[in-house]
Structures are given as C-alpha cells and as structure tokens.
C-alpha cells in the first residue's frame, strides 16, 4: 500500500498529514503469529493548535486490504528513542513512552529515515525534546542550526508535500484570474499574446513606479529641511528652559532660608505665649484678694454675712494654697513668699475659727441645758434644730479647717462631742425618766378613774374580789392562777394602749433626735468623702475641696452603701408613711453613707442611750410581762426602719431588740410555768381550766399586737410551745381532778382548745388543732360508753358475759346451757329492768350528765345525743344477742324500742 493511499484513507478524514511511514515489526517477533504487515506512521495534525505530532502504529486489518490504526502516541510523550547502537548497523530501535516499545524496521535506511524525521519534527514542534540515544551522529547533525533547520525542514516538508499534494486555487484568486482573462479576450485563444500583453502592462507599471519615485525626491528634500528647522527650534526652547531652571533653583534656595527663619520666629512666639500664660496662671492662682485677707484676719464670725464672707475667703485661700503649680515654679521666690503668706493667713484664721467655734460649742451646750426643764412636762426630746441651724452655716468653714488644719479640726470635734455628750446624756436621761413617769401617772390616773385607791394593783384586785362575791356560782369553779399574767380588763387594755403609744413615742423620738444629730454631724464634720455628691451643695463643696481625701478608702464604702440604699430606699418611704418619717426619707439618701467614723462619733455623743433605753425597757417589762409583746413588735419595726443605715441607732436598737426578745421569751416561759403550776379546786366540777381561758385571751391580744408584724414567727413559736404545755397540763388536771370524770375534763377542754385554734387559723398550729379535735372526740366516746354501763348495769354485765362466752368459742345456741347464763338467769336479769326502772335510770343519767358538764362549753346536748345513740345501739345489740343465743325462748326485754324513744321524748319535755 502506498503512502498516498494511506494518507487518503486513514489520515485525511481527520485532517492529518502523513509525514513518514516505515514498515516495522514488533520485537520480539512472535513466530507463531500470522505475519501481518504493520506500519509506524508519523503524522502531523495541523487542525489542533498548537500543532501536534502523532505516531501511529497501523496494521493491516483482519479482513480485506484496509489498514487500521492500532495505537497512537503523541510525539510529545516520547521520552527516549533508542537506536540500539550508534556504530553497528541494526534495524531495531526502541520507543520509550510510558512503556517501552521495541521495533524492528524492515531495513536500516528506513529506520534512519524514520529517526531523522522524528528528530526534525521534535526540533520543530517540541519544547521538551525526547532523548535520542545510540543513534549515528550524522543523522542528528543534519540539522544543527535550528534556524536553517527550520527552513530546511520546512522546505523539505513543503517539497515533499507539493510533490504529492494538489493545492487548489482559492476562490478569490480564481475570480481575479477569471476577471483578468475575461478582460483580455484573447487570453485563452492566444496565450502568447496574453503574456505579452501582461508583460507590457507590467513594464508600463514599472515605469510609472520609477517615475513617481523620482518625482517625490523634491518633496523628500523639503521634508528634510522642515525637519532641520524643527530641530533648531527645539534646541532654542531647551536653552530657555535651562535658564529658567537656573533661576528657579536660585529662588528655592532663598525660600529655604526664609522658611527656617519663619520656624524660628514661631517657636519664639509660642514660647513667649506659654510663658505669659504660665505667668498669668500663676498670678491667677496665687492672687489673693485683699478683701479676703481682711475677712480672714478679722472678719465677723458671728453674723451670717460675715460667715459667708469668711467662707468664701477660706475657700479662695484653700484653692490658692492647693493651686496646681508646676513643681519648678514652686521654687521661684515670689511663689514661695506668697505661699508663706498664705500659710500664715491660714494658721491665723484657723486659730481664730477654732477659738470662735470652741466658745460657741461650750456656750451652746450650757445654754440648752438651762432650757431643758421646759420639756419636762411633755413627752418629747428637746429639739436641736436651732443649734444645728446655727452651726450648719459653719459647715463649709469646718471643711476648710479639716483640709488645712487637721489637728485643730480634731480638737474642735472633740470639744463638740464632749459638750454635746453631756447635754445629750442629760436630755436622754430626763426624757426616759419622764417616759417612765408617764407610765406610772397613766396607771395612777386610770386607777383613780376606776374608782378605788391610788394603787392600781390594789384597785384591780379589789374589784375582781367584789365581783367574785357578787357572783354566786363562780365561786364554785375557783382556780388558782399564781402568775402575774393578766389579760384584757378595762384597766389593762387602757394601760396597754397607753404603754404602746408611750413606747412608740420614745422610740420615734430617739430615732428623730439621733438621726437629726447624725445628719448634722455628718454634714458639719464632713465625715464622708462626698466625691460623688448627690445634690448641688455637695457639688459645690466638691469643687471647693478639689481632690478631697481620695486616699482614705471611704469612697468604696460609699459606693457600696449607695447601691445598697437604692434597693432599700423605696421600702423606707413606703414603710414609714407617717409625716415625721416621710420628711426624713429625703435625708436618708445621705444617711446611707454612714461609716465607722459617724458611728463612733454618735457613740460618743450618746454614751448612755443604750443603757437608758435598756433601763426603760426593763422597767416596763417589770411592770407587766405582757408589754414585752408590744416592745417586740415596736422595736423590730424600728430596727427594720434603721437597719439599712448601719447607723449607731440601728445598732443600738438592734441590741435592745435582742434584749426585748429575751424578755418576750421569758414572758412566754413564765406563762408556761404558770400553766404548769395551775391548781384546780377539788371541790367543784372542773369546767374549762383557767389556763385554757387565758390562752384564748392571750391569743386574741397577741394577734392584735402582732398583726402585720414580721415578728409573727416568734409568736408562732411561742404559740406552739404554750399549746404543747396546755395539752400536757389538761391531761394532768384531768388525772388529778376528783370531782369531775377525767373524760369530761379532757372532752370539754380539748373542745375549747379546738375552737380557739380554729379561730386562730394559724397554719403552724394545724397539727395541734387536729390533735385537739381528735382528743375531744375520743373522750366524748369514752365518756358516753363509761356512763352508759350504769342504767342497765346488770343487763350489761350479763350480756358482756354472754358475749365473752361466744368469743371464747362457745356456740351461740349453747350459751343458754351454761349455768350462769341459762334462760332462767336471763329472765331474772330482765325482770330487774322493767320499763319504769329503765326510764328512771335514764332520767338519772341525764341529770348526771347535766351535773358533770359545765354549761359554758355547751356540750350537754352533744353528749346526750351521743348517749341516746349508743343506748339505742345497745338495745338493738342485746335484742340481737338474745335472738342468737336464746332462740325460740320467746324471751324479750321488758321494754320495747318504742318505749325507749318515748322515754327520750319525755326526758326532753321535762326540761
């Protein structure tokens, strides 16, 4: 098969061009295979860009003469071509792609052709060329110079191509050619003439061309001249530019010099300005008005206007002395002198001020003392508002003093405290005394009012004695109550309400005075760092005092307090309600800032307060243990009002509250003791025991006192303790009592306790309530059953015996055969209870119940109802027992059910 054929059939359809082909056979040759002709073709694919070179292995197809592409490689993938040997002639060669393929060409020439063709192609189209080894040098040298090689290769290619390919004229060429030929009619017929014509035309064109070239010479010259001109002009401009440049450089130098000078001037100006400012500042700071000096030297410290002046002066002085001056300036003589002057002024003024205030304090302490008696009649603490008002105008001066002269400030506070301490001690003492007096006088007047002798206690006892005389029956239930517990008589109630109001008055007065004083001290002695002032006053002070005392760590305390107070603030206002306290609510904001300093100051001012209050409380407690309940409630309320301030007062009240709580506990203990010691008269029926009554009264009163108090929990505890004891003691009394059956005592008293506890509706006492109810029910039953044995005693015993027999296993029908329970015996027993007898017994029973129960508890109907019920049940039971144990004997009781009911009705009618 020829190369042409192969190209046509195999490669042209894919736009490929066959370059070289050699017949080859695969190595090692497989002999047993039918030898088929096999070709290696090198093919150029021009369609793909960049141009690719393929190597095809083409084999003759199984059927027919056609060839088939068996394998294809890209030349690019060829890593190495091994010619086996450069010297020895061999037709074998290896192609190393991914794999190595061994081939044998049909002849040496063909192998060399193939190799050189690959060599050329790879040099032309590949950047990374395959390695050619074991190949004779001459094959590769052929194309040493890549350039010529390219041309050569190309020409070789082209030649080889032209020789074998027909290339058609393009469409345009064809059209041009046709046009040309049609213009010349003879063209076809006479080629010679046509050629001639063409050459003629060509020569004409040539001539014209030369002509025009020559004609343009002038113009070229012209152009050249113009160009020369242009160059000259340009040179001139360049010269000028250079001149300008030089000039500019000159100017630049000058400008630089000027700039340096300018900078220098500015620096100097600023320095001057600064110096001036600094000086002005210094003068402003240290300038001290003459009138201020005058005020400080001998300003009037008694009149408000003078004080204001002095205050301003002092503040100015303070700000001058503490002006922010650069340390280096401090060393200048002027400043030093001025500072010295200030210091002198300050010392002088502080001396003057301390002296003045010292006198003022002492004077005021004494003066108030004289007017003290005026308050004695009314239960009121003396007002200190006027002193406070008088002193408070010095507050700013005090602040100044504190900041400038700490020692005299402390001395001054000491003087104030010692003076006022005396005053307050006296006042508190007198106040407490008058409060005590008030209690006694009320008691006395009330006592008189009641219409007996002067001593109230005596009055009470005599009245009750007379009353006892008047009351015939009451004597029958005499009981001994040795304790001093007493509830709710007219006198007592009145006295207690008086006590309550006196107590409230005492506490709120103390609270008022203490808080007023605390407020004052706080303001006057500036005990707190007010770095985050609340109101305008404080802000002013803050400005005046500048940095204030930031080092003493109060600020932290204050912040903590404030957050605390924010939550508490609302509670206070809402809780206090009353006028006095409400006005204070605004003050309290500041009051939160109490710290140890204030507290210790207050403690020094009121050294006796706690003791006096304690004495008062003890005194009251001694008068009446019941008061401890009032005290507990009132005190705890006041403690709550004050506790948030963490103040001296809060602490004092807190301590007292603890004592009051102890008093209350003691009161409860005494009450319990008295319950334990209660003796009940043996002669009369028991009825409701005195301590049960007492508990009811106590509960009513206590509920009144403790209503709404947060101390109710204490009361609850007391309740359950007392109730326990009462339950215990009811049982003791029931055991001891000779006249009244135990069950009656228990039944009546527990019924009453149940009722009392139901009224209280206290969840803490729910279990006790249930217990009371249960005991009441139990004893009601026990009493009924015990008593009911009586009316039909023999019958009862007989049937009990019968029942016992049956229970031990005797058949019911056979009981009658036992001697003791024969029909005979039964008849005998029954005979003893004719209807009349039964009725008499029932009437007797009814009377007995009436006699044993007290009317007060009103349980007669309940008990009697129960009795009737049980009696009927018994009757029915006997009846049934007889039917079971003595069948066919026709024995019945001598009274019918109808009789029984009639008896009941008759008894009812008898009342």
């Amino acid at each position, binding site marked *: 098969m020829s190369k042409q054929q192969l190209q046509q059939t195999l490669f042209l359809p894919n736009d490929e061009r066959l370059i070289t082909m050699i017949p080859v056979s695969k190595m090692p040759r497989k002999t047993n295979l039918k030898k088929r002709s096999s070709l290696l073709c090198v093919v150029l694919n021009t369609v793909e860009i960049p141009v690719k070179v393929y190597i095809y292995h083409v084999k003759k197809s199984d059927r027919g003469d056609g060839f088939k592409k068996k394998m294809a490689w890209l030349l690019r993938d060829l890593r190495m071509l091994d010619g086996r040997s450069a010297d020895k002639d061999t037709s074998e060669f290896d192609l190393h792609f991914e794999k190595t393929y061994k081939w044998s060409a049909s002849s040496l020439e063909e192998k060399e052709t193939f190799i050189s063709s690959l060599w050329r192609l790879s040099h032309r189209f590949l950047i990374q060329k395959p390695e050619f080894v074991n190949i004779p040098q001459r094959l590769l040298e052929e194309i040493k110079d890549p350039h010529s090689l390219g041309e050569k290769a190309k020409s070789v290619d082209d030649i080889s191509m032209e020789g074998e390919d027909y290339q058609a004229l393009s469409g345009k060429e064809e059209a041009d050619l046709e046009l040309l030929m049609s213009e010349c009619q003879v063209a076809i017929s006479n080629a010679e003439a046509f050629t001639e014509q063409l050459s003629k035309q060509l020569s004409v064109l040539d001539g014209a061309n030369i002509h025009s070239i020559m004609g343009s010479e002038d113009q070229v010259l012209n152009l050249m001249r113009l160009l020369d001109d242009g160059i000259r002009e340009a040179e001139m401009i360049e010269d000028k530019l250079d001149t300008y440049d030089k000039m500019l450089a000159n100017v630049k130098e000058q400008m630089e010099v000027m700039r340096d000078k300018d900078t220098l001037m500015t620096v100097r100006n600023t320095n001057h300005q600064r110096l001036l400012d600094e000086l002005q500042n210094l003068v402003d700071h240290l300038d001290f008005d003459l009138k201020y000096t005058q005020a400080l030297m001998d300003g009037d410290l008694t009149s408000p206007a003078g004080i204001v002046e002095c205050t301003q002066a002092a503040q100015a002085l303070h700000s001058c002395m503490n002006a922010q001056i650069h340390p280096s300036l401090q060393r200048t003589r002027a400043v030093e002198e001025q500072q010295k002057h200030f210091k002198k002024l300050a010392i002088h003024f502080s001396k003057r001020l301390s002296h003045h205030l010292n006198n003022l304090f002492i004077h005021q302490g004494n003066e108030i003392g004289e007017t003290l008696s005026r308050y004695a009649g009314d239960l009121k603490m003396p007002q200190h508002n006027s002193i406070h008002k008088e002193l408070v105008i010095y507050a700013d001066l005090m602040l100044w003093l504190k900041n400038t002269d700490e020692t005299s400030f402390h001395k001054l506070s000491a003087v104030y405290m010692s003076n006022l301490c005396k005053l307050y001690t006296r006042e508190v003492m007198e106040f407490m005394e008058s409060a005590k007096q008030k209690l006694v006088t009320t008691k006395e007047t009330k006592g008189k009012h009641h219409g007996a002798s002067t001593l109230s206690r005596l*009055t009470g006892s005599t009245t009750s004695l007379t009353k006892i005389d008047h009351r015939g*029956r009451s004597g029958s239930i005499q009981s001994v109550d040795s304790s001093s517990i007493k509830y709710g008589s007219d006198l007592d109630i009145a006295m207690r309400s008086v006590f309550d109001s006196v107590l409230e008055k005492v506490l709120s007065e103390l609270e008022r005075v203490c808080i007023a004083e605390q407020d004052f001290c706080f303001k006057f002695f500036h005990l707190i760092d007010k770095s985050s002032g609340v109101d305008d006053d404080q802000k002013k002070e803050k400005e005046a005092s500048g940095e204030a005392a930031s080092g003493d760590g109060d600020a932290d305390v204050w912040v903590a307090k404030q957050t605390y107070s924010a939550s508490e603030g609302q509670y206070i206002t809402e809780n206090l309600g009353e006028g006095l306290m409400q006005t204070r609510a605004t003050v309290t904001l500041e009051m939160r800032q109490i710290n140890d300093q204030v507290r210790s100051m207050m403690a020094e001012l009121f050294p006796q307060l706690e003791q006096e209050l304690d004495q008062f409380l003890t005194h009251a407690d001694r008068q009446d243990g019941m008061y401890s309940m009032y005290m507990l409630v009132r005190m705890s309320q006041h403690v709550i009002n004050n506790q948030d301030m963490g103040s001296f007062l809060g602490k004092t009240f807190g301590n007292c509250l603890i004592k009051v709580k102890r008093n209350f506990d003691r009161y409860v203990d005494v009450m319990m003791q008295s319950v334990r010691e209660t003796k009940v008269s043996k002669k009369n029926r028991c009825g409701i025991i005195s301590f049960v009554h007492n508990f009811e009264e106590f509960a009513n009163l206590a509920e009144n006192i403790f209503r709404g108090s947060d101390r109710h929990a204490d009361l609850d505890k007391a309740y359950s303790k007392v109730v326990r004891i009462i339950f215990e003691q009811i049982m003791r009394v029931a055991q001891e009592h000779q006249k009244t059956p135990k069950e009656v005592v228990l039944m009546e008293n527990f019924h009453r306790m149940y009722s009392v506890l139901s009224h209280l509706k206290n969840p803490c006492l729910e279990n006790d309530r249930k217990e009371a109810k249960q005991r009441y029910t139990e004893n009601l039953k026990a009493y009924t059953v015990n008593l009911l044995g009586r009316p039909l005693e023999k019958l009862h015993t007989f049937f009990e015996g019968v029942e016992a027999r049956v229970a031990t296993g005797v058949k019911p029908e056979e009981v009658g055969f036992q001697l003791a329970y024969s029909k005979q015996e039964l008849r005998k027993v029954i005979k003893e209870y004719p209807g009349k007898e039964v009725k008499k017994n029932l009437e007797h029973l009814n009377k007995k119940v009436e006699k044993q129960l007290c009317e007060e508890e009103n349980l007669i109907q309940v008990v009697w109802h129960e009795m009737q019920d049980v009696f009927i049940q018994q009757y029915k039971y006997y009846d049934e027992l007889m039917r079971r144990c003595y069948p066919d004997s026709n024995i019945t009781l001598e009274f019918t059910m109808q009789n029984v009911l009639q008896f009941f009705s008759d008894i009812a009618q008898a009342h």
Partner: protein
Amino acid sequence: MSSSTPSCFLLNTAMSKAKTQQPAVIHKVIMVGSGGVGKSALTLQFMYDEFVEDYEPTKADSYRKKVVLDGEEVQIDILDTAGQEDYAAIRDNYFRSGEGFLCVFSIKEQESFQATQDFREQILRVKNDENIPFLLVGNMVDLAEQRQVSVDEATKRAQEWKVSYVETSAKTRANVDKVFYDLMREIRSRKMEASRQNNGKQKKKKDSRKKKCVIL
C-alpha cells in the same frame, strides 16, 4: 351561763373583766335538716370563714362565738346536728334546748325540701310554740344550674309557716351571715316579748314547771 368564765381569774391581781368578757345574752341556735344539705358547712363558714369540701356526716357538735348584734355584744351557741338519724325522737332533747332554728335543705335535692316538713312538725311539737324563731334556708345556691326546688315553691311553704325563706351558699358565703343574724334578731325580740309577759306571771310559770317535774 355567763358566770363561769371569770372565776378562773380569781386570784389575778388586776382582774376586773368579768362582765365584758362574757356577754350576758346567749342565743341558742339549732341547725336542722336532712343529711348532706350543708348544715355543718354553713356553720363552719359562719364560725371560721372556711369552707370544707370534704363531706363527713356530723353526729352533733356545739360551737360558740361572740358577735355584735346591732351594737350589742352577744354570744351565739350553735348546735350542729346530725341529718341522718334512725329515730326522730333522739332529736327531741336538743330541739327542746334550742331558741331558734335554721331549717336547711338543698335546692338541688327535692327530698331534702320535703323533709323540712317533718322537721318543722317535730320542732313545733317539741317546743309547743307556733311562733318559735325559725328560718327556712335553701342552701347550695352556687349550684343553681342543678336546682330542683324552685324559689316559688320554697317561698310558698315559708309563707304557709309564716317564716322567712333565704337562699344561701356555704361555699361562696352568700347570705351566710344574714341567716344567722336574722335568726338572732328574731330570738332577741321573742325574748324581749317573753320577759315583758313574764313580769306579771312569773310565779305561775314556775309552778307549772314544777308540776311537770313531778309527773316525770
């Protein structure tokens, strides 16, 4: 009755409360009616302001409370009785002790309404008094949707008896105070009337009482 309490305080030093503690006037009220109509519920609501949902049949129980009746402090004794009883005669005794009666039925139970007739008759027989203070009470008015006894029906009967008819709810406390206070007022006016009459013929009455005792 009022005399027993103060004696317990005999030896207390400042005791003088006697009269104020124990009101002289006691009104005895009896609750009657069939079982489960709410006699105890009414009583407990009046006494302790509480309503007990659980039903537990009463046998008999006595309650006492101090109240202010038209400005006067009085004591009310309430005898709460059993509704379920096999023998009516058992009731005679406490009917006898009562000064006024609250005859309760349930408006959602016709039977309980019918039973009031028997109670009324027994009370009149035992007390032997046509004008005994008496109130017909229709309870459970909070359950009006289950009503079986109409207002007209009950009012008619009350008119026949010449007593008032009041509807109550022990659960909602509707009219609870009213029935007790109305009854106490009736009792009070009856007592005043009686004392006026008694002024003249006190002796006679004593005699008649004694005679009865002899018979028994």
